C-alpha cells in the first residue's frame, strides 16, 4: 500500500503543479481481485522504471556538467568500451525482465485466462455502431430461456440517429445519466461473451482493468468477480467510426438480492427499461 501512495502522490503532485487542477484519482478504482493484482504488477513496474528513469537522467545531466569542454585542455579518456560493463548492463535488465515476464505470464494464467466453466452469470455482449447490447443468458448458474432473458440496450445512439449537434455533449451528460445500467451481482462470477455485428469494438470497464475486443464473427470471453458495488462506465476502446467517442454504457454492480430481484423483474417483462 505504502509505495503506491507515495508514487501516486509524487505523480499527482507533478500533474497538479503542471495543471493546477484538482485531483481525484490517478487510476480509476479497482473493483476485482484480479485488477488489484494487475495494479500491483503495474506499481512494481512503475517503481522499477521510475528508478531507471531517474538514474539515467541524473547520470546524463551529471556527465554533461562534469565532462563538458571547459577549454582547459583536459584530454578525454581513450577507450573502446568494456566487456565487463556490457555484460553487467545486459545481464541486469535481462534478469529484471525475466522476473516481470514470469510474473505477467503467471498472472495471466492464474487469473485472467482462468475463465470459470460454470459462472454465476453469463452475459452476451453484442457491440454495434455505436451501442452495446447486453443479454443475460445464464443466471445463478442456470440457463435462462430465450423469451425471458433480461436485455439492456444502450440504443440511444444507433447509426440512424443524426449526428449530434456541436453542443450535444452537454445534453449527452444527462443522456449518459439516463442510460439504463446493466446490473451484475457483487461477489459472484460473471462471464462476458463479447462479439460484434459490424466493425471491431472494444469492451472496457476501466475499473476491471481488462479490456477485450469485440470481433465480428468471433466470441471473446472475459470474466470478473467484482467486490465493490457501484456505478461504473462502459466505454468502447477501439476506433469504430464517427460515433466511437460516444459509444457509452453503464454498469451497476449491485448486491446479490438486488440483482436477483432485477432479473426476476426483467424476466417478467419489464422491458420498457430500454432507454
Amino acid at each position: 500500500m505504502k509505495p503506491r501512495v507515495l508514487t501516486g502522490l509524487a505523480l499527482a503532485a507533478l500533474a497538479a503543479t503542471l495543471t493546477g487542477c484538482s485531483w481525484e484519482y490517478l487510476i480509476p478504482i479497482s473493483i476485482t481481485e484480479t485488477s488489484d493484482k494487475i495494479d500491483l504488477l503495474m506499481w512494481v513496474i512503475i517503481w522499477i522504471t521510475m528508478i531507471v528513469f531517474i538514474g539515467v537522467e541524473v547520470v546524463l545531466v551529471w556527465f554533461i556538467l562534469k565532462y563538458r569542454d571547459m577549454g582547459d585542455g583536459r584530454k578525454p579518456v581513450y577507450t573502446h568500451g568494456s566487456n565487463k560493463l556490457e555484460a553487467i548492463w545486459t545481464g541486469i535488465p535481462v534478469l529484471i525482465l525475466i522476473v516481470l515476464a514470469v510474473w505477467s505470464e503467471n498472472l495471466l494464467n492464474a487469473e485472467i485466462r482462468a475463465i470459470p466453466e460454470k459462472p454465476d452469470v453469463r452475459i452476451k455482449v453484442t457491440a454495434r455502431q455505436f451501442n452495446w447490447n447486453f443479454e443475460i443468458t445464464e443466471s445463478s448458474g442456470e440457463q435462462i430461456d430465450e423469451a425471458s432473458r433480461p436485455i439492456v440496450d444502450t440504443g440511444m445512439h444507433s447509426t440512424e440517429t443524426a449526428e449530434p449537434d456541436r453542443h450535444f455533449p452537454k445534453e449527452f451528460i444527462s443522456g449518459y445519466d439516463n442510460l439504463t445500467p446493466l446490473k451484475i451481482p457483487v461477489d459472484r462470477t460473471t462471464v462476458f461473451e463479447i462479439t460484434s455485428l459490424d466493425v471491431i469494438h472494444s469492451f472496457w470497464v476501466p475499473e476491471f482493468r481488462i479490456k477485450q475486443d469485440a470481433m465480428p464473427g468471433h466470441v471473446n470471453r472475459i470474466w470478473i468477480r467484482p467486490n465493490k458495488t457501484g456505478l461504473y462506465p462502459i466505454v468502447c476502446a477501439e476506433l469504430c467510426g464517427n460515433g466511437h467517442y460516444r459509444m457509452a454504457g453503464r454498469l451497476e454492480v449491485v448486491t446479490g438480492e438486488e440483482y436477483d430481484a432485477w432479473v426476476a423483474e426483467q424476466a417478467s417483462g419489464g422491458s420498457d427499461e430500454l432507454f
Partner: protein
Amino acid sequence: MSDHKHDSGHHGEGHHEQTFIEKYIFSCDHKVIGIQYLFTTMVMVVLGGTFALLIRLQLAWPDSSLVAKLVSTPDKYNQYLTMHASIMIFGVIIPSLVGAFGNFVVPLMIGAKDMAFPRLNMLSYWLVPPAVFVMLLGLVLPGGTAAAGWTSYPPLAGAQYSGVGQTGWVLAVIILGGSSTMGAINYLATILGMRAPGMTLLRMPLFVWAIFITSVLTLFATPVLASALTMQLLDRAFGASFFVHTAGGQPLMFQHIFWFYSHPAVYIMILPAMGIVSDVLAVFSRKPIFGYRAMIYSICSIAGFGFIVWGHHMFTSGMSPTLSTTFLITTFFIAVPSAVKSFNWLGTIWGGSLRLTTAMLWALGFVGMFAIGGLSGIYSAAVPVDLYIHDTYWIVAHIHYVLFGGSLMGVFAGVYFWFPKMFGRKMDEKLGKLHFWLTLILYNFVFMPMHILGLGGMQRRIYSWKIYPHLYQLQEINVFMTVSLIALGTVQAIFFWNIYKSLKGGEKVGNNPWESTTLEWQTSSPPIAHGNFEKIPTVYRGAYEYNSELGPYAPQTLPDDKVRSMAKA
C-alpha cells in the same frame, strides 16, 4: 550543388538555366535527392503538425464554437487523426531518416561515388509527392479521406464502412512502400558493393550500420505490408473477401499481417536516428563510441527480434493464449538491446570533452527522451498491464516519446550536424540552442501529461471526452497540453528561420568544421557534384579514433604517419 559562388541573396537561377531541372529537380545525384527528401519532409512536418493542432484544439475545447468551425464533425476528427499519423510516419519520419540522411550521407560515409542505382533512387524520391497527394486528395472529396486510423483495421477500413478516401490511402501507402523497398535495395547494394578500399564492415560508422540493417528490415517487411494492403484493396474495389467476416474472411488476419510489417517499421523509424545520435555523440565527446561491437549486436538483435514481436499490438484481440505468451516473452526481450544502446551512449560521453554544439544537444536530448519511451514500452510488454493501457493515451505517450523525443530529435541532430556538409555553411548556433531548449521543454509539456491521461482511463482516438463523467477531471490537463502544443508549433519557426538565414548567410566552413574522422568530412563542403571525392579514398581504420595515441582525431582516410604529422602541425 557545387554552385555556391554567390555570397548573398540574389537568386542564382539565371546562370544554370538549362540544367536547373536536371540538376535540382530530376537529379540522379544522391546528394541532391537527399536534400530534396529533406525539404519535402519539412513541408510534411508542417502539414502533419497542422493536423495535430486540429486534433488537440478539439480535445481541449470540445464545445467551443470556434473550434467547431475547424473540426466540424467526429468524422472530420477521425480523418485528421488518420492524416496526422500517416503523414508523420510515412511522410516525415521514414523519408527524413532513411530518405534524406540515408541518401545524402551513406555514399559519402563509405567513400562511394553515388548510390548503386542512381535512377532507381530518383524514382524512389519521385514516388513520394504523388503518393502524399493521393492520400490527401480525399480531404476535398465528398466522402472525405481515410478515417480509420493509420492502422486501418478492417472492417472499419472495408468497403462497407469507408469511402473512396480510404482507397486513396491504401494506394498511397502501397506506393510509399514501393518507394521504401526500392530505397532498401539501393542501400543494400551500395553498402555491400561500393565501399571504398579498406572500409570493412567493422570500420563502418554506426549510421551506415543502422541504414544497412534498416534496409534489411524494410526489404523483408514492406512487401508484407503491400500484400495486406493489396488484399484490402481487392476487398474494397473488387469484392474479394479476405477480411470480410460475413463472406468467410478474417478481419484479425489483417492485424497480424499489418503488424508483421509495422512492428519492424517502428524500428525502421528509430534505428537510423540511433545511428545519427551515436555518430554525433562520438564526434562531440571527442571519444571513440563506447562498445562499438555491442552497438552492432544490439542493432542486429533488434532487427531479429523485431520480426517476432508483432502480436504485442494485439493482446486484447482475443488471439490464442499460446501466441500471446510467445509475444509476451519476445517483447520483454526486445527491450534489452535498446537498454544496452542507451548505456553505451552514456559510456560514450563519460570521460569525454563534450562540445555542446546544437547537434550535440539534440543527440543528448535523444538519449534522455528515448529512455522514457523505451521504459514505457515495458508497461505494454507486461500483458496484464497492457490490457489496461492498450488503446489509451498511455500508448500515445509511448509512441511520441520514441518517435518525437527519439526519431525526430535524431533528425534535428542530423540537420544541425550535416548542414555544413550539405551547403558549406553552418547553421546559427544561438538560434539552434534556443530552438533546442524551447522544443525540449514544450515537448515534455505536451506529451508527459499523456501518461496521466492514459492511466486515468482516457481512450485514444476520441473526438470528445465529455461523454464520460470520469474523464472530466482530465479537462485542465487537456487544455494545458493544447496550449503547450501551440507554443511548441510556434517555436519551430525559429528552426525554419534558421535554415533560411543560414542558407543565405550562414558562417562559411571548410571541409571538416567538426573535426570529425568519418569520410564525408574528408571531402569538400558541399562535395563535388560528380563522384563526391576527387579520388576514391582509402580507409585505414575504424570510424571513431579520437584522442588515441595518433592525435586528437584520426580521419579514416589518412595513414598513421600523416595523422601524426597533422597532430604536430
